[in-house]
């Protein structure tokens, strides 16, 4: 029982990490209709910026806030400079552009920050409580709390504000939104900026819980984050969270209980996705497009 609960805890710990990045992926998809494969590497690069700021003497929490602001500006500029010229292109072209961004940011990170692992300190004390033999880490608690606040703010922004309405409208029908007075250009930049800032926060909170920051830090996470989003539904923030958690827990339990799959545990979460998508192509929480003409 203890082993089982410990593995669930591990799964949750990883799951919230996938969910944090998944949330950024959902945000860009919801607001611009693009699947951003570079989300992980953008987070990687901005986490290096966080690290650089701590090296300059900023306290970690301040470094995180400053790098989130820089990431927001960077994300908005990427939309304006890199994505905008492909506005009229097919979704396939945009996928290739974001994969190009993925490679570019990874290469830039190695170029500017070298290949050896960087240690990024935690913004909070590292604690570990034993509750009935199951260990509960402060890492897990902080990640869950931050994720919960992010979800709440994101929901409030998208569902309860005028800007959120405009963001969703542009994603759904940019021409109509513009005829109603919404500046689509501003909204697209805003969506990318917000997602980049969320990705930065995810990276800066995740890296201290790992063995250090390297150019490969985000790649495994990105794959699982995408898996979680596919499971939960590409347009649903709640889906990103639930999907990320399911993937994290399924992965942890497989590692513990199915030794036959050692080394290829990844097929369990992906098998799960296959089944869900066969039964519910829009994902667990995704929406179907309703259209009648």
């Amino acid at each position: 029982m203890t082993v089982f609960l410990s593995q669930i805890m591990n799964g949750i710990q990883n799951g919230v990490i996938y969910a944090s990045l998944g949330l950024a992926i959902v945000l860009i998809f919801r607001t611009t209709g693009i699947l951003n494969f570079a989300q992980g590497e953008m987070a990687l690069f901005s986490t290096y910026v966080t690290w650089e700021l701590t090296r300059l003497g900023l306290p970690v929490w301040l470094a995180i806030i400053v790098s989130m602001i820089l990431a927001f500006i960077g994300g908005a500029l990427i939309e304006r400079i890199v994505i905008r010229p492909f506005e009229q292109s097919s979704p396939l072209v945009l996928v290739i552009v974001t994969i190009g961004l993925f490679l570019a940011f990874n290469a830039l990170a190695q170029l500017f920050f070298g290949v050896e692992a960087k240690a990024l300190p935690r913004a909070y004390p590292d604690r570990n409580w034993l509750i009935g033999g199951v260990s509960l880490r402060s890492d897990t608690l902080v990640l869950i709390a931050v994720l919960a606040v992010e979800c709440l703010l994101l929901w409030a922004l998208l569902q309860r504000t005028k800007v959120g309405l405009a963001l969703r409208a542009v994603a759904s029908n940019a021409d109509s939104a513009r005829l109603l007075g919404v500046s689509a250009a501003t909204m697209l930049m805003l969506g990318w900026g917000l997602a980049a800032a969320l990705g930065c926060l995810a990276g800066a909170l995740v890296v201290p819980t790992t063995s250090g920051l390297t150019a490969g830090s985000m790649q495994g996470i990105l794959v699982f984050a995408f898996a979680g989003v596919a499971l939960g539904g590409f347009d649903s923030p709640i889906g990103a969270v639930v999907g990320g958690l399911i993937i994290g827990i399924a992965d942890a339990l497989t590692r513990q209980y199915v030794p036959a799959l050692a080394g290829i545990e990844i097929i369990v979460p992906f098998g799960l996705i296959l089944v869900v998508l066969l039964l519910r192509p829009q994902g667990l929480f995704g929406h179907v497009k309703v259209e009648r003409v």
Partner: protein
Amino acid sequence: MSLLEVRSLRAGYGPVEVLRGIDFHVDEGEVVVILGANGSGKTTTLRALSGMVETSGEVVFDGRSIAGARPEQVAQAGVAHVPQGRGTVTDLTVEENLRLGAYTRRDKEVGTDLERWYEMFPRLAERRQQQAGGMSGGEQQMLAIARAMMARPRLVLLDEPSLGLAPLITQGLFRTLGDMNRDLGTSMLVVEQNATLALAIATRGYVLETGEIVVEGTATELAGNDDVRKAYLGI
């Protein structure tokens, strides 16, 4: 001075010129109709006014030039555009579509207006929380018109509101447009193929043929014009 004054307006798509220099105007409180067959350039005319296609020429709205302005700037200036095909934001609910219509407003009376348009179009009230894309064509046309009015515009551009709708629904729609013009004084520019209904609510009109205006006059004059009667009234 007219509310909307258009002089030598040209527009097209790439090398193809569709509008070959047209002049027209809409005075405050008028309903002006532009009649034209399929492909004559009606949609292009409205898209040119809203800054959605490459144009040259003069477009003066309320004393200010809006030639070359972006669609969102034209909307902010007080021009609402009900596009061909209705432009429903399908992923939003009916109510969210209506609230989006008020995007350019800064006042606190959006809720009051919302109730007023629900009263005018009870079908929309029944479906306020439904995804807008799931409604019938007629309901989506009502939504598009109510959404345009939520902006409290000075001028509404309507692109073939009758397209794809049953005759009875179209009649109701035009009656509503006429009421709105009379009660609120909102000026309208309607482009249509359905001359009977459009001329019934219009003050004046123009006939557009392959990108040029060939006839203009009061609604009564147009309804009596032999060419118009042959081409658009089927008489």
